[in-house]
């Protein structure tokens, strides 16, 4: 217990990094994923294929390598990014691809009749999408989106490759220094708390949307 209090401050500092990377990535990559999903479904053929290729590459290679590429590869062509911006860029580009596929499936699952009703009523395409389709999509994509968000919380630990210290890194350092698995257990608990809160929030959102079927 005393030991936990001793290592907790530095672990919490690491948790701060974890949360920042998580929050910014989530906030940016979710809308970006939507745009990509739309481009894939509604864009012209060239755009749609470009997005598919983008998604293939982003999902097809490890985020770790993408991070290395952006942080250490881009400087070779003259683009030098700092640690945090480089990490955020890699995370956002990567996660947007995953979200894009989830949203594509969600959009495709809305019955054609909903679009047709909107069109015949004279609504504009963007109104149909934003006010008729999107609210129904949101309800359907919450569970797979939750999966990705939880993976994201833990994936943030990859920032160690650019030399940033997150909560898991902090735990590892303490574990090897003090020859004990306790810090790793503590990291597990901290993750669990973060994801427990996330689960609660998402469940609330799901419940709020259960007023219709």
């Amino acid at each position, binding site marked *: 217990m005393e030991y936990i209090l*001793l*290592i907790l*401050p*530095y672990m919490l*500092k690491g948790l701060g990094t974890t949360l920042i990377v998580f929050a910014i990535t989530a906030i940016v990559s979710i809308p970006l994923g939507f745009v990509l999903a739309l481009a894939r479904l509604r864009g012209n053929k060239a755009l749609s294929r470009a997005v598919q290729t983008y998604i293939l590459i982003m999902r097809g290679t490890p985020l770790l390598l993408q991070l*290395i590429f952006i942080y*250490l590869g881009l*400087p070779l062509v*003259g683009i*030098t990014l700092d640690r945090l911006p480089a990490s955020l860029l890699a995370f956002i580009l990567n996660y947007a691809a995953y979200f894009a596929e989830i949203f594509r499936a969600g959009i495709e699952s809305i019955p054609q009749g909903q679009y047709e009703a909107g069109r015949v009523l004279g609504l504009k395409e963007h109104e149909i999408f934003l006010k008729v389709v999107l609210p129904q999509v949101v309800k359907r994509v919450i569970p797979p989106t939750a999966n990705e968000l939880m993976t994201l919380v833990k994936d943030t630990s990859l920032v*160690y*490759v*650019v*030399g*940033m*210290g997150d909560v898991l*890194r*902090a735990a*590892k*350092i*303490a*574990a*090897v*220094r003090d*020859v004990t698995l306790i810090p790793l257990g503590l990291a597990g608990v901290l993750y669990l708390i973060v994801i427990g809160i996330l689960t609660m929030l998402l469940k609330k959102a799901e419940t709020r949307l259960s007023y219709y079927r």
Partner: protein
Amino acid sequence: GAKEQTPTTPPVPKDNTADIKARGEIIVGLDDTFVPMGFRDAAGNFTGFDVELAAEAAKRMGLKVKFQPIDWTLKETELDSKNIDLIWNGYTITDSRKEKVNFTTPYLDNSQAIVTMADSEIKSKADLAGKAVATQTASSAYEAISADAETMKGFKDGEPVLFDTYDDAFRDLEAGRVDAIVADLILARYYTAQRGTEKYAFLDDNFGDEEYGIGVRKSDVSLLAELNKAMDDMKKDGTAAAISIKWFGENIVK
């Protein structure tokens, strides 16, 4: 964007020493899980044998020191891209590394020790035949084993079991899933001391001797010279010995 002019001759690499001086700060790259050479204390401050050496050397060069944790896999690339100025973290001098970086004069001797549980029947290198032998991924111990292909082929599965940290390797040794560990002697001594020296045995055989040095960018020749001088001074006036005694209980700096 503007069109890039492709240079006809490769650019002469610029010596960054002046820039570092101007900045007043030297950046030392290290793996902050590398106990006891470079790691962090409970408050998150950098500490360790190499860290203290580096801090002292920087002071003598009139520079502030900044420690930058890096992924050990990427250390030379980090050096190239000037994210760091030095690799200083139990960095073993090898031929392939010499092609990419300049090394200072070696400051520590090391050997690749073989560690078993105290009650093990393994008494020599030859006894490792058919046994599971562990070491750290991408470590100099792994390179040393690879260099002794004859012995390695005798291992169970014909290759060592690789762990991310020696910590994990020692836990696996205790769980009985591996029979021996090959590790930098300096690290192995530290680990066994932490976990209880009496539980382990060190074999007389080893996988060869080697030396630690500090990695400096090829271009930064004046930095290399200054660093060598600072290290020499520290060895001569006993500062290095004092740091060594603090961390290892004896002076092993050469």
